[in-house]
């Protein structure tokens, strides 16, 4: 399972970087999305992929029972997803504005034109 996840993470990074290197705003945006997903999945797999019990703390205890799954990577990913959502929405609006203002979706042409 971890090997599969590692391959998927690597594939996501590769696709994301490839898309970002194309000369197109939309592909740039999609590349950013894939990079974010890759990072999230990386946290998930680095946190350890195990079948554990739900990490619920019994009454009177202060720690979850031994063998419980670690909830922290999921909390991190959840936060990262929320942040990623905000950032990608902003980037999408920016890309649209860039296209409207410059009339092109090729970042290289933009540099020369300004």
């Amino acid at each position, binding site marked *: 399972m971890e090997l599969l996840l590692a391959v998927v993470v690597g594939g996501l990074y590769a696709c994301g970087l490839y898309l970002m290197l194309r000369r197109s705003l939309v592909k740039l945006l999609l590349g950013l999305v894939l990079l974010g997903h890759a990072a999230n999945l990386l*946290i998930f797999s680095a946190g350890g992929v195990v079948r554990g019990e739900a990490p619920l703390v019994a009454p009177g205890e202060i720690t979850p029972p031994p063998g419980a799954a670690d909830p922290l990577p999921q909390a991190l990913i959840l936060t990262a997803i929320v942040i990623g959502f905000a950032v990608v929405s*902003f980037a999408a609006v920016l890309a649209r504005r860039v296209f409207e203002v410059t009339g092109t979706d090729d970042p290289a042409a933009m540099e020369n034109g300004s």
Partner: protein
Amino acid sequence: MTTGWTVLLPLLAPLAAAAAGLLAWRAPRIQAAVGIVGAGVQLATGLVLLRQVLREGVLAVQLGSWPAPFGITFAADLLGAVMVVVTGVIGLAVTVYSLADIDPGRRAFAYFPLVQVLLAGVAGAFLTGDIFNLYVCFEVLLMASFVLLALGGERAQMAGALTYVTLNLVSSALFLAGVGLTYGITRSLNMAELHLRLSLIAESRPELVLALAGVFFVAFGIKAAVFPLYTWLPASYHTPPVAVSALLAGLLTKVGVYALIRVLTLVFPPLPGAGSFLLAVASLTMVFGVLGAVAMFETRRILSFHIVSQIGYMVMGLALVGSDSPAVRTAGLAAAVLYIVHHIIVKANLFLVSGIAARLGGSFQLSKVGGLATAAPWLALLFLIPAGSLAGVPPLSGFWAKLAVVRAGLAGAAWWTVAAALGAGLLTVLSMVKIWTEAFWKPAPDTATPPPPPSRWRLALLAAPSVGLAALTVAIGLYPRPLYELSRRAAEQLLAPSSYVAAVGVATANDSAGRGGEGEP
């Protein structure tokens, strides 16, 4: 030790001001007033915090009353407190300047609350004791800076903002990946606890720790704009209004440098080869940055390239932490801290002054302006102070900062980097002289079309923050001792992380009760 809620105040003040400002969406005047109050309170609480840290040592607070590795840790050591104070100074100066500089169109889209969000993010980054929260604070300040950079939607701004947003998002994705890997390896995100665990892991798996440090170096290196990761900076910093440029130029790259210092001194144990690697990066950053500046003929572009070259001096100070001698380590790090403080004040001021010069002269293009020395002698003086300081002219703050870096470099036998620093210093003089002769000294070209001069009141608002920052530069230059002592104490604290770890109060790595398994994933 869960005293010291003062730690949170410099973060909460601008955040509250931003929220209050957003409530008054239709009233930019109120937003501006609230913004000034927010920045002022941040500065005041920063000073209170610094005083308390000086007196009591590292302060830490755990949110949610959970003990150390579980609670959300905020901690202030001397470095963090000093950086917060400087943030407050720049925040206040830029907000006042913005009153006269920012057009109504930008104000209507919550310009002032956005500045407050940025200040909150910066202060949060300086004060957090948790590496994931460092990521969150980075995102907060980045998001605000994205909007500030793109607000207004001019054509040049769009191209600049696109580069800036893309590269910073790549850097954030890398940082996030680094955080995930760190958690996978150590089962912790608390910086104090990471300090303990990573030094244990470094004994058995040094290559793992080195690779992890590499991920963080690239992520923070992009944000700090070191060679060869700096290209986004000169492509974007000259496009927004001057007030925004000054804010970004003063604070943001230095947050990256701060993160490098924090991670390399507190989180990671001493890494083999890191010192010489950083020295090489520092030399190349200084030289390439300054060469870029020499080639430019637009004031803000010249200043942007100088940010890059100046980052090199700070990294050089940090690189000396790899030295064998404790005296060199302290001197290097103290020089880096001193340099950061000096640089933030001077660089923000240079941008502010360049904005006034462009308002009076009509353009940022050096070929299109001239004669400002006779038209506005006071402005010439106002430019000479930060420009001389940046170039390292005694007795201004830059002289002492450069002297400290170079002396530490000589003591650490980093000959090539010292040579690069001195060479870059000379070229810095050259490009400051270029701005001086072109904009101030030479007669105004016939093609120059100076715009109608701004009203007296507006000019006073523009000049006041600049005068204040220039006064600080001169004060540091004339009395460098207190600030240098402060930097040295901050450096000593950074090099002996046990006080930080003790203040945060994490258990030693051996008895990690209640946490998942230790060691490798």
